[in-house]
């Protein structure tokens, strides 16, 4: 590869300014031509064309699932496009090894932190690129460079404490420092400000300004549209795997951005249902989880599907976990079918009251992958298929087949290990496990994530049938259209708080996004509960 290397000896020359000025062969840092990528059941990217100029901050926005993460994973070499090509400063990108990407001059900061909590801040900052002399780590050099960069970034983090003891915001800053210290030409930042408070955000904005001055090209992804518009030179909008439009930031407004993110798709409000009865099944008042959630109050009716909308990190999963008894620190009061009761402190507590959770992470929290489908279906209520302590195999099989029919699960697969099933079938098992217990309240966290269309429909058919029979359902999904299509009412959340509770008939994707992005201002913030 003939790529301008900005490592090694040149580092020494640049020591005065920790991040050097660059001389460029070309002003185009990255050029992407007609790149497509599909995953089983989803076309994640469709014919993307994109240009990143040197010294530019390029904002990238789009709703959840628009393909932003897939796109940047591709730029950083973590996954390979099906078709199309990517050039980094004139040389084609090779897809073998993330380390090669590093040589190619790209550093990325992902949404999920990659800090190793047990290691020191210093070790984390130089992870994978420890300066060494004859194989012995050069601690002096590390400390000096860390000091320079900290000063330059306006940080004051001690290098020798364990990274795990830092606040999430400071961990994020270490992560950014790590990306900066590699001294790359292109920096990709995926939601870097999500965990940061206003003060740290300010520091990051300044840092981005300085990096830009030194010639680094930056791709900046954020759900905070104000931030994107203020920081970026140009902004591109993605939707449904397409890169729709790139304009100079000055030519966008928040409204036009939201418009472009949503497209002209009119959400079919005709199918609106309102099956909820007047009978209140569950009332949550003043639910709080220290540091994560505060002041949530809402009711759930018999036969109702209550949607919960919000961005990643808004506290949707925590809300469900609190109700399901999985968060012992939760505070609040609960009325169940009209009777006041203590907040459930354990999962068993909640299950006894008929409240069950189908978690987002099927593989780690939902299923025992090494066991058969049948075993998984019976997991939550073994007593129902047992005489005394002994499991009745005939009863188990009959029950399993009945559940399989109900969920559209191929009963020939009942003896297959859960490990070998598709995401859709795994989700059916998680649901089936709980249906077997006939719960009163079903909490669904991203039930359709990574699932193909057919399975999605079967899952929602099952959920609707159950709610028609009187079960209350709380549905969390990043797919807003799905929430609107299926929910009787929509609880809108942001930053751990309840923003609004919309009637299903009045809810549109636009309205919800406007609420979330506070385009409508913050008038409804107190969370009117109807």
């Amino acid at each position, binding site marked *: 590869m003939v790529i301008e290397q900005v490592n090694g000896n040149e580092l020494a020359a640049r020591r005065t300014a920790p991040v050097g000025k660059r001389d460029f062969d070309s002003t185009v840092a990255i050029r992407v031509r007609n790149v497509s990528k599909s995953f089983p059941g989803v076309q994640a990217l469709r014919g993307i064309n994109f240009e990143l100029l040197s010294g530019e901050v390029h904002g990238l926005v789009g709703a959840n699932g628009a393909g932003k993460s897939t796109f940047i994973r591709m730029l950083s070499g973590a996954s390979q496009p099906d078709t199309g090509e990517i050039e980094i400063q004139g040389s084609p990108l090779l897809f073998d090894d993330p380390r090669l990407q590093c040589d190619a001059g790209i550093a990325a900061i992902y949404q999920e932190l990659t800090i190793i909590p047990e290691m020191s801040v210093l070790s984390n900052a130089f992870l994978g690129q420890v300066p060494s002399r004859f194989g012995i780590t050069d601690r002096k050099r590390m400390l000096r460079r860390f000091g320079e960069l900290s000063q330059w970034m306006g940080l004051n983090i001690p290098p020798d404490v364990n990274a795990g003891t830092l606040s999430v915001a400071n961990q994020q800053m270490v992560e950014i420092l790590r990306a900066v210290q590699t001294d790359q030409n292109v920096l990709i930042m995926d939601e870097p400000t999500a965990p940061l408070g206003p003060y740290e955000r300010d520091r990051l904005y300044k840092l981005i300004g300085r990096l830009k001055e030194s010639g680094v090209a930056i791709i900046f992804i954020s759900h905070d549209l104000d931030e994107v518009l203020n920081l970026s030179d140009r902004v591109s909008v993605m939707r449904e795997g397409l890169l729709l439009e790139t304009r100079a930031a000055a030519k966008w407004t928040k409204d036009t951005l939201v418009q472009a993110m949503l497209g002209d798709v009119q959400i079919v409000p005709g199918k609106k249902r309102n099956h909820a009865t007047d009978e209140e099944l569950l009332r949550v008042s003043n639910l709080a989880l220290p540091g994560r959630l505060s002041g949530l109050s809402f009711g759930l009716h018999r036969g109702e599907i209550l949607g919960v909308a919000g961005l990643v990190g808004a506290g949707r999963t925590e809300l469900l976990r609190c109700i399901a008894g999985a968060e012992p620190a939760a505070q609040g009061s609960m009325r169940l079918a009209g009777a006041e009761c203590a907040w459930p402190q354990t999962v068993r507590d909640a*299950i006894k009251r008929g409240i069950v959770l189908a978690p987002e992470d099927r593989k780690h929290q939902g299923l025992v992958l*090494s066991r058969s489908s049948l075993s998984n279906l019976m997991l939550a209520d073994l007593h129902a298929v047992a005489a005394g302590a002994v499991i009745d195999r005939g009863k188990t099989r009959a029950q399993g087949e009945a559940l399989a029919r109900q969920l559209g699960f191929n009963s020939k697969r009942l003896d297959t290990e859960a*490990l070998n099933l598709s995401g859709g079938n795994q989700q059916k098992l998680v649901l089936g496990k709980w249906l077997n217990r006939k719960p009163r309240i079903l909490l669904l966290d991203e039930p359709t*994530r990574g699932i193909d269309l057919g399975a999605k429909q079967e899952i929602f058919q099952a959920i609707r049938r159950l709610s028609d029979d009187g079960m209350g359902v709380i549905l969390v999904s990043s797919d807003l259209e799905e929430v609107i299509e299926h929910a009787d009412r929509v609880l809108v959340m942001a930053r751990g708080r309840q923003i609004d509770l919309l009637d299903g008939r009045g809810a549109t994707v636009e309205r919800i996004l406007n609420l979330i992005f506070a385009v409508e201002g913050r008038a409804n913030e107190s969370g009117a509960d109807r």
Partner: protein
Amino acid sequence: MSEVNALPAPPAPLTASWRAQLPTLIRIYGIILTLVLLLAVVTIGNPAFISPQNVFNMASQWAPAGIMAVGMTFVILTGGFDLSVASAYSLCAVVAAYVGQTHAPAVAFIAAIAVGLLFGLFNGILVAVVRINPFITTVGSGFIINGVALVMTQNAAFLVDNESFGVLGAGRWHGMPYSGMLLMLFLLVFGFVLARTIYGEAIYAVGGNYEASRLSGIRVRAVVASTYVLMGGCVGLAGSIAASQLSSAQANLDPGIIFDVLTIVVVGGTSLSGGSGAMWRTAVGLVIIATISNGFVLLDISPYYQSIIKGSIIVAALALDTGLTRLVRVK
């Protein structure tokens, strides 16, 4: 975005040709093949191997390790480990011998089992409730238990001069040893518990995925702790049998027995990472290990080679298992 995070795994074919399934079949049943080959070699080398006399002697001789392997199967299936069994085995034998000197044998054995259960509970609470790593917990409790036994005996052997004390370990009915029958009973009863009861299902679930089991409403801590208690009970009975066979006991009865117990379980194919395995596998592992040891004597091979060959068979069995697991997964 969301669709990237959870790529659906390709569905496994419902019917695959036997050729394609061969690695899977070997992985599941290969250990039986190993056993059959081993039995054939030893039997051809010395037909006395399958004489009832020899089989009964082996059953009696391997009863303590086999009974402890039954308990260990439960512990390992939940993803745990118990290294304190060698010390506890000696302590229980010492308790049986000590009580047996002055009381009826039944009282002595019940006392030994009670001590085993008690230390099992101790381990169980530390592992499941305090949540210390089982490896460290049981190394530590092993030292404590060994210390208790040394203090009790002052490192001398307790001799029991009472003929009826020997019935449990050495008594026979029509040539069949009671201890061997107890071993069979344990394998059958606890095999059934594991395969067919709610408790057994919970053991597999907790070992396979602790968090998913917890979120499904299984009492995960109680399940994990109970396996150590069961282990303790098995150790108590094993210690009683050993004391009865020898009519004596001392603080360091057989420190190496822990390796026999672990080997029996693991060679059978029960996974050390928990969640997968079975009692029939432990039974097969037991017969393999017993056959290797006994076969050396019958085939008149120098015992010096025994360790080398025993070790090779163990490593080979595990390598085969791991290699085939990877092969099956990759496909």
